[in-house]
């Protein structure tokens, strides 16, 4: 069926494209009328050709299951999500500000611990953090930056306000899908690019390379930068390979690297070649079997020695994950004030810490209204969606919280914003979030837009691709043009 925006079922949530039935938002006006001009058949045709393009381009991700690891085609909805440039500029500033404060925090907790001495941040939270690495205490990475690449999850509440849901500072993934989504849209809707001024996303790989090159221990124009992957069986392997390809650097596995005299080398057909910067996509604990998990076959023995001596740079730095903790998250607005003496541009989602008795009691009494998250998990695992859970599930979860309060925090269920997706019949709203990527090196960069993830099931809030989520191309559009 042809799309008629007058029939579009706007709900309670803020919709990114349609403000009320029949009324597209200003930045989305062209897009909405274009989509409505397509016949139902044409629309399904475009959808099919997007699926074909994804197959051919081999855009895939890996799902772990009992039956083995399955390589799945990337789920994609063809209707782009639109953000106006004016709004984005403010968001961008907020993200840069946030990462700058987070980096100050990480550098501080591994060195002087001023923020604890000044009683802005409680020491016990640090002591219990599973991502704090005592091995890194006293380390001073180049430029004072620990987290060079950050993927922050943003959601928009029912008023349309962007809020930060979490900051991913360990090995955030998804940026390659952001880049590939744009390519797919160009293949499927080439005509749309004529009538919109859309900010290009293609600069990311160059900016990433510049960020990495800036922290090289050897002062070279083109230091030897590599991407370290756990290998082809990792769910994000596609991305690792993609980024290496786009930056024109080697994609290495642990077995390709060797440490001699506290210096890292890779095994090449010419013999050993020195490595300056490693963009590692392996978790801290697997990096170096000498220092962390002795059973790790993914890592490189001696890598930490080389890093601590300053002979190789690691991005993100080991230990940066200390700020990637859902309890630490609640202190980010305080950090911004403390380190930068600025007001936070982007607000957090209101949060309750379960290690505080008063807040915990509130959480336990209101489990049916809250989303409870474990402090150190990612990918949407181990969460309780209070309003949708059964009484039994809530009771079981209450026990878990009481047993280990430090491990949990709770947030009110935010009505995530929606955007239309193509369904077999026409277009319906689905909940979405947004993961922009922020780089900090000598300069800071933010991707224009980011990866929009979609909960493809009606009414669902789960956007993770490992759990059936999909994605959309995200356009930051210059208004008033054309």
């Amino acid at each position, binding site marked *: 069926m042809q799309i008629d925006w007058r029939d579009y079922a706007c709900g309670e949530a803020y919709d990114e494209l349609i403000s009320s039935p029949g009324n597209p938002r200003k930045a989305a006006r062209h897009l909405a009328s274009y989509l409505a001009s397509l016949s139902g058949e044409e629309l399904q045709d475009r959808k099919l050709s997007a699926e074909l393009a994804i*197959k*051919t*381009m*081999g855009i895939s991700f*890996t799902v772990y299951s009992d*039956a*083995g*690891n*399955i*390589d*799945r085609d990337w789920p994609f909805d063809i209707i782009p999500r639109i953000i106006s440039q004016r709004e984005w500029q403010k968001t961008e500033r907020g993200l840069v500000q946030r990462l700058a404060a987070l980096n100050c925090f990480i550098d501080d907790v591994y060195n002087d611990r001023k923020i604890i001495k000044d009683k802005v941040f409680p020491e016990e939270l640090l002591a219990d953090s599973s991502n704090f690495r005592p091995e890194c205490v006293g380390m001073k990475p180049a430029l004072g930056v620990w987290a060079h690449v950050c993927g922050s999850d943003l959601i928009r509440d029912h008023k349309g306000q962007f809020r930060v849901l979490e900051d991913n500072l360990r090995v955030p993934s998804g940026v390659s899908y952001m880049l590939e989504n744009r390519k797919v849209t160009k293949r499927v809707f080439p005509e749309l690019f004529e009538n919109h001024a859309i900010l290009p996303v293609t600069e990311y790989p160059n900016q990433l390379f510049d960020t990495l090159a800036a922290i090289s221990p050897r002062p070279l124009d083109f230091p030897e930068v590599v991407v370290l992957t756990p290998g*082809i*069986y990792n769910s994000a392997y596609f991305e690792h*390979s*993609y980024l*290496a*390809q786009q930056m024109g650097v*080697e*994609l*290495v*596995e642990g*077995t*390709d690297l060797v440490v001699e005299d506290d210096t890292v080398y*890779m*095994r*090449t*057909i*010419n*013999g050993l070649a020195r490595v300056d910067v490693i963009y590692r996509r392996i978790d801290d604990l697997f990096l170096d079997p000498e220092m962390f998990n002795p059973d790790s076959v993914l890592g490189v023995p001696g890598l930490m020695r080389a890093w601590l001596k300053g002979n190789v740079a690691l991005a993100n730095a080991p230990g940066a994950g200390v700020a990637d903790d859902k309890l630490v998250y609640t202190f980010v607005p305080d950090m911004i004030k403390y380190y930068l003496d600025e007001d936070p541009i982007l607000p957090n989602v209101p949060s309750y810490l379960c290690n505080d008795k008063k807040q915990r009691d509130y959480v336990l009494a209101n489990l049916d209204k809250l989303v409870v998250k474990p402090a150190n998990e990612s990918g949407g695992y181990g969460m309780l969606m209070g309003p949708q859970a059964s009484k039994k599930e809530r009771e079981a979860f209450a026990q878990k919280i009481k047993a280990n309060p430090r491990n949990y925090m709770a947030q009110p269920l935010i009505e995530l914003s929606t955007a239309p997706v193509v369904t077999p019949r026409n277009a319906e709203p689905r909940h979405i979030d947004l993961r922009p990527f922020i780089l900090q090196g000598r300069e800071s960069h933010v991707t224009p837009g980011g990866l929009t993830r979609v909960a493809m099931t009606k009414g669902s809030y789960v956007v993770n691709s490992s759990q059936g989520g999909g994605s959309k191309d995200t356009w930051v559009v210059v208004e008033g043009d054309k």
Partner: protein
Amino acid sequence: MLSRVAERIYWMGRYMERSENMARLVNVNSHLLMDLPKGIRVGWGSLINISGTGDYFRRGDTELADERTVVRFMLSDRDNPSSLLNNLSWARENARITREIIPMEAWELINDLYLDVKDNLSKSVARRERNRVLQQVITRIQQFTGLLAGCMSHNSAYDFIRTGRNLERADMTTRIVDAGSANLLPHLTGGDDVLEPYDNILWMSVLRSLSAYQMYRQHVQDRVNAEDVVTFLLQDGLFPRAVSHSLGELEACLKKLPNSDDALRAVTGVRRRVRTADIPALLQTGLKEYIDNLQLEIADIHRQIASTWFLPVAPLEATPSETVIT
């Protein structure tokens, strides 16, 4: 270039070439059948022997196997490590691992080819459809070769792909010569002569399986005969699928790579022995032993290449993929 990547890209070259050869073999046998009178059985089983996968064939005597069974085994059997589908899936896995090295279009081509073949192979048991599908496989692999020649820097990675391709090609040609002589030579030395009137047709099909017929006719004026065909396929320096030429290409690739002395020594030795072999004498005494030996020498070139450039512990060689491919 990383040793691990060199290894994988080399195997990608080999698997792509092996896929093409597999398609050629099956296709030519199908055509040959149409030229022979009813009642004369040309063993479909010889295809299995040529590809050296007899050990994986679990449906009885290869010589007695019928067309359907053999075609399915050669093209789509997951248990046959050299089936077309497995070759393509391994080529694809290796390409996926080295995706940052090869041009994007090359990866898309391999990926597309694999997905297409996977979807259409079940249809290709019937002869008509089979020809179309296999011809497409051959064409697209040649397109792949052309795409690399035209769009990929002729760097070390490119040399490793060509190294893999030429080594595989030399190996396959020896197998085809071996199979041709095994089927055809008995009556040359006074054995079973049922097939004798059709010798000509059979040797022509051997040439056709390597797209060599036309080039052979330009080169050899005489009618198609065992001695000339074997000489052409082993010793010709100009025909791309002749063993001597493939080894020459291999030599040229290796020369451009660092530290290539040991590998080069292995290749030049084999090439010299191929070029100076006394074919008429070998045809009398039995080609089989000579070819078996040649295949061992080719395998040794691979070992030299591996020990010079690849990682000390080979992470993937014969079975590059454990993922479930859906």
